[in-house]
């Protein structure tokens, strides 16, 4: 191998300055490092602060995955979950967004959102899918950023970042305070209660509560809170009332509140309110209104103070001005007069009497002195309806003997007492009873008993007792009559007739028909007097009649009878005539008309009964009494009438009777001739068929029950008439009794003259009753308003 060996090349290194040896390619790493640094810077500058939140339990929290949300917007992410040094807590490190960091101040709260089912509803459902997340509650004002927080165990019911008032509720037991339960004002939920906690000494349960704006204005220092069970049952004079307030309150309770006293001030945050068991307990608690400076007084009673407890109210005209602070015994008198009296110590709050400013003790002493001088005394009074427990009342006693406030052995001023120990209700009741006792009840009772006896006799009479059955029959009959078609058709006619009748009656009344009747009766009286005169002549008349009879006996009667026979035969023939044959139909029609007429009459009767006609009739009947009396007088005139009749008879005797008989004979002969004619001979057969038809018609009537009804109607009417007759027989007796009764009543009424003592007593009694009634009414209203007053006595 012999390779050509080239000559040594002339290699010269490049010449240049310091940078000529550098390639432009160095820009690449410079740019890369620039970009990287920019990225690092950006990441660093965007990074917010890392905060640490301490939880008891970090269930479901995953580092780098669990987010922190505020109003459902991510504001951070958990970067680390680790234990505290002693393993008692879990520390969750969260990288906050830089923009939020300034709000994470001391007021920020953090908790873990987990799915939760409670009485308030179901929340946190999204965490079932996406896992738990942390939630923050931030206020709107940036503050000093904090790095360490203590996490809450759950969503805080009161976040502290909402507008409203936050205060503390204190209750003897936790039964009425339920976490999340609403605070209700007039049935509207205005806030809620936080989780209750037991106080350190275990005596009470406290819970934070929150009332949203603008309702926070409703909470004042005088507000009272009580447990709302959701169901309220009132038993009052107006009946049983069941109110179901609020469904959520029904499920989880809740508290209601109200201002029991006016003039409450604005509540500071953290104000402590007591929770009462019920509205009544809330309204009756006077501890807050009686908190204030007080002045000690005492009273000494000689009666039992059983039922007067420590804390019983001192009332001035119903206003509680203090409480009983103690009871003890004091010895009074010596020897035979030795006794132990009851001393009651009390504290009176002058503020309740309107005394304020400085030196309240002197002002109160002055006021009390004035009051005692005016007759104000203390006494024991029962509380409530039953008066089982006692209170001390300050009452004004009229005509009280003058007394003064004396100083007790210990310097406590002792208020003078009045002896009267009563409960208001008992007193009122007793007064009312006294008034009632004074009423003449026995006399009234006797009169009433007598009246009742009389009525009983009337009612117990057979006539009245039988009446209902007959009335039933009558009604049945009437119903059959009324339901007939004729009646329906007749109503309109009857109506017209009735109007006419009514008009007639009216005219009669206006035209003085009764007066006419009286005048007629007067005339009848005159006639009766004439008759009386006539009656005296009766023996003569008898004799003349005897003569007349003798004369008649001598008349040719045989012939007359023969002629009569002939007449009858003729009549038989006549009846058979066709004219007579048509008679039954006419008779039927006539009966129908009669039926209608009866219906009309029935209708008329009803109308009469309904209309004023009856009263007219009654008036007429009254007149009848006087009429009958007139008749009585009239009957005294009968002998004269008989005399007159006698005279008439004698005159009749003088009449030419013989001629009459011959005329009659002639007539009979003529009739005989008529009857013996051919036409008359056909009459009997026609009459026979007509009678058959009548018989058939009657049979129809019988089948139709008309006859039965008629019969029963008649029987009923008859028995009714009998009953009325019997009743009428009793009427004079009844009238006598009524008369006597009315006399008695008159006497009684005379006794009750307007100026009589009874009347005045009655008036005062009524006035007292009125007052008592008003008192009872107001009591009832009070009880209605506050039924519990029955139990608690206020």
């Amino acid at each position: 191998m012999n390779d050509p060996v080239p000559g040594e090349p002339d290699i010269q290194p490049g010449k240049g300055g310091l940078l000529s040896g550098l390639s432009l390619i160095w820009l690449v790493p410079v740019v890369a490092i620039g970009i990287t640094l920019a990225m690092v810077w950006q990441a660093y500058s965007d990074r917010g602060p890392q905060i640490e939140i301490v939880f008891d339990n970090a269930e479901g929290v995953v580092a780098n995955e669990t987010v922190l949300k505020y109003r459902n917007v991510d504001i951070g992410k958990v970067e680390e979950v680790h234990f505290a040094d002693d393993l008692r807590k879990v520390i969750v490190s969260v990288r906050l967004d830089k923009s939020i960091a300034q709000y994470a101040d001391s007021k920020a709260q953090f908790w873990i959102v987990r799915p939760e089912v409670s009485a308030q509803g179901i929340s946190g459902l999204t965490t079932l899918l996406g896992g738990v997340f942390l939630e923050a509650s931030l206020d709107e004002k940036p503050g000093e950023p904090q790095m360490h927080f203590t996490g809450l165990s759950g969503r805080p019911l009161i976040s502290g970042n909402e507008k409203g008032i936050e205060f503390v509720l204190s209750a003897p037991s936790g039964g009425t305070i339920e976490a999340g339960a609403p605070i209700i004002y007039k049935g509207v939920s205005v806030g809620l209660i936080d989780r209750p906690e037991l106080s350190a000494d275990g005596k009470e349960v406290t819970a934070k509560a929150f009332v949203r704006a603008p309702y926070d204005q409703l909470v004042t220092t005088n507000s009272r809170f009580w447990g709302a069970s959701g169901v309220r049952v009132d038993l009052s004079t107006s009946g049983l009332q069941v109110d179901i307030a609020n469904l959520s309150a029904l499920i989880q309770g809740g508290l209601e509140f109200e201002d029991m006293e006016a003039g409450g001030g604005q509540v500071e945050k953290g104000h402590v309110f007591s929770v009462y068991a019920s509205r009544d307990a809330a309204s009756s608690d006077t501890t807050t209104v009686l908190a204030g400076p007080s002045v000690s007084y005492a009273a000494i009673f000689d009666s039992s103070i059983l039922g007067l407890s420590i804390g019983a109210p001192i009332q001035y005209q119903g206003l509680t001005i203090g409480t009983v602070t103690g009871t003890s015994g004091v010895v009074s008198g010596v020897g035979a007069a030795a006794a132990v009296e009851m001393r009651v110590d009390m504290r009176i709050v002058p503020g309740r009497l309107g005394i304020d400013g400085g030196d309240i003790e002197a002002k109160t002493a002055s006021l009390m002195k004035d009051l005692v001088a005016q007759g104000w005394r203390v006494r024991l009074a029962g509380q409530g309806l039953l008066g089982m427990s006692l209170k001390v009342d300050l009452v004004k006693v009229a005509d009280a003997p003058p007394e003064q406030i004396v100083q007790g052995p210990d310097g406590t001023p002792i208020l003078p007492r009045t002896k009267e120990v009563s409960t208001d209700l008992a007193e009122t009741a007793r007064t009312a009873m006294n008034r009632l006792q004074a009423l003449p009840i026995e006399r009234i009772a006797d009169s009433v008993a007598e009246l009742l006896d009389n009525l009983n006799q009337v009612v117990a009479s057979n006539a009245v007792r039988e009446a209902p059955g007959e009335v039933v029959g009558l009604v049945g009959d009437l119903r059959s009559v009324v339901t007939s078609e004729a009646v329906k058709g007749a109503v309109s006619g009857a109506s017209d007739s009735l109007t006419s009748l009514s008009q007639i009656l009216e005219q009669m009344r206006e035209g003085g028909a009764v007066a006419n009747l009286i005048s007629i009766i007067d005339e009848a009286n005159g006639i009766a007097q004439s008759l009386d005169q006539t009656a005296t002549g009766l023996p003569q008349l008898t004799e003349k009649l005897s003569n007349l009879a003798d004369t008649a006996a001598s008349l040719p009667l045989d012939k007359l009878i023969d002629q009569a026979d002939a007449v009858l035969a003729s009549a038989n023939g006549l009846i058979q005539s066709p004219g007579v044959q048509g008679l039954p139909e006419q008779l039927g029609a006539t009966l129908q008309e009669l039926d209608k007429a009866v219906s009309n009459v029935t209708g008329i009767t009803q109308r009469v009964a309904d209309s004023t006609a009856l009263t007219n009739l009654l008036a007429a009947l009254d007149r009848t009494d006087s009429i009958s009396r007139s008749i009585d007088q009239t009957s005294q005139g009968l002998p004269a009438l008989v005399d007159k009749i006698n005279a008439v008879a004698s005159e009749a005797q003088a009449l030419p009777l013989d001629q009459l008989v011959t005329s009659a004979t002639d007539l009979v002969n003529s009739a005989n001739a008529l009857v013996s004619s051919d036409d008359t001979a056909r009459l009997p057969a026609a009459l026979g068929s007509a009678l058959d038809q009548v018989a058939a018609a009657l049979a129809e009537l019988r089948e139709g029950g008309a006859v039965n009804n008629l019969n029963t109607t008649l029987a009923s009417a008859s028995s009714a008439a009998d009953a009325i007759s019997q009743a009428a027989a009793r009427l004079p007796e009844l009238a006598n009794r009524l008369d006597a009764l009315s006399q008695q009543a008159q006497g009684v009424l005379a006794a009750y003259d307007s100026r009589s003592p009874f009347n005045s007593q009655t008036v005062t009694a009524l006035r007292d009753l009125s007052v008592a009634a008003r008192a009872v009414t107001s009591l009832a209203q009070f009880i209605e308003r506050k039924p519990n007053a029955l139990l608690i006595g206020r």
Partner: protein
Amino acid sequence: MARSDQALTARAAGLVGCRHCGTVAPLGTELCPRCKGRLHSRFPHSLQRTWAWWIAGLITYVPANLYPMMIMDTFVTSYKSTIVGGAIELIHSGDAFVGLVVILASVVIPTSKFLAIAYVALALRNPRKVNPHLLHKVYEVVEFIGRWSMIDVFVVAILSALVHLGAVATILPGIAAISFGSTVIFTMFSALSLDPRLIWDTTEEAKRERSRPRRA
């Protein structure tokens, strides 16, 4: 001058070879007479370029490992995984093989590439103790293997294209994907910038100096 253990270089022969078409031209010719490509006897600033690309690759390799490679958004949660984190998760979840492949492709290969380029580049500065044959082999391996280290980027690119299911699941490439891609590209440029002829130049130079008697 020619020795049995020393090859005659084109440069020594006063020639320059075209890297594109292999034509030999006299030294000093700027353009290839056949293919008109630019002729360099040796790459200018070869080592500088190599180091520049190398440093750029190393810089971008940092965020490639720190930032998430893949962001998986499901409607429940958002899951971000870095290269190493994702690989470890794969191994933990049982796919040890896939995890190892990912680690190999995304960690071992780029790292060894950095090391290899750095080794070659440093060896050229201090060529006395190195075997030029070993250096050349290392260079060959680095150049061959460089393109395969993009496997992670490919996975993310494919998944991002495929998994686009709206709210249910979406996969997005993270910053690390771009960074890692840059790293791979920069290291490839770095390897390309290294003129392998320098290996022989420097080693033979060193031999020559060693064989040369020391001057007094």
